[in-house]
């Protein structure tokens, strides 16, 4: 198991103090890694969103994608640093794009909403849950449960998108477009093309 030095050191320290066996130490290192990376990524991404003036939109994109990826899975990078870089770029960009798109005519916003909902349902139905060699889904029952959860979340997001198209609130179009664009990003990540994109990102050398 290869985790960051920080996760390994902290887990080893805690395991020594509390006399934990090796297996529990590995689980602890994994839990610390997930927690640290998710918190750091969220803080950095929201900070960039705030600096670019799209804090709320970035937060909505984060929440939407969080709800999905937890159950639907999708393409992943092999490197936490590349993941952080892409996350910090993509989420605020989605929020900026949503802000721009939301000023368009209602007709086009309705079309875009409908297309994203259709694509979302189709891709979740066909591909989800997408696992990877580092986190394989072994049980068919668990696989089915994750698919049902992903479809349920898709249903909730659909209702939110539709509600936001009808209510009179000045932020409604922008928040709605954040949901729509996040849905498209998540759906893309479920597909083989999404996996190819991550494979390509992983081949970019960082010096």
């Amino acid at each position, binding site marked *: 198991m290869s985790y960051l030095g920080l996760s390994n050191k902290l887990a080893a320290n805690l395991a020594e103090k509390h006399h934990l066996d090796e297996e529990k130490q590995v689980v602890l290192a994994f839990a610390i890694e997930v927690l640290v990376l998710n918190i750091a990524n969220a803080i950095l991404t929201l900070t960039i969103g705030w600096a670019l003036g799209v804090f709320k939109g970035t937060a909505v994109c984060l929440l939407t994608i969080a709800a999905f990826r937890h159950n639907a899975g999708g393409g992943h990078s092999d490197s936490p640093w590349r993941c952080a870089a892409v996350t910090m770029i993509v989420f605020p960009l989605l929020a900026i794009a949503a802000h721009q798109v939301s000023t368009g005519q209602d007709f086009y916003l309705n079309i875009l909403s409908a297309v994203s909902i259709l694509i979302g349902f189709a891709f979740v139905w066909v591909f989800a849950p997408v696992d990877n060699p*580092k*986190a394989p889904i072994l049980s068919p029952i668990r696989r089915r449960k994750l698919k049902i959860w992903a479809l349920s979340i898709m249903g909730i997001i659909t209702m939110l998108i539709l509600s936001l198209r009808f209510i009179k609130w000045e932020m409604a179009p922008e928040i709605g477009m954040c949901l729509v664009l996040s849905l498209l990003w998540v759906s893309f990540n479920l597909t083989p093309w999404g996996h190819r994109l991550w494979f390509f990102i992983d081949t970019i050398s960082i010096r």
Partner: protein
Amino acid sequence: MKNLMFRFSGLAIVALIFAAKVEPLCFFFHYQPEVPASLRK
């Protein structure tokens, strides 16, 4: 103080191991740390 820190770190360990056992899939970003064999399901 040391006793308090020891107890707190014990609670943190229980919470972390519990969270990892409940759901080993990554939460929402684009990197998945390798799930330990004992947590795979």
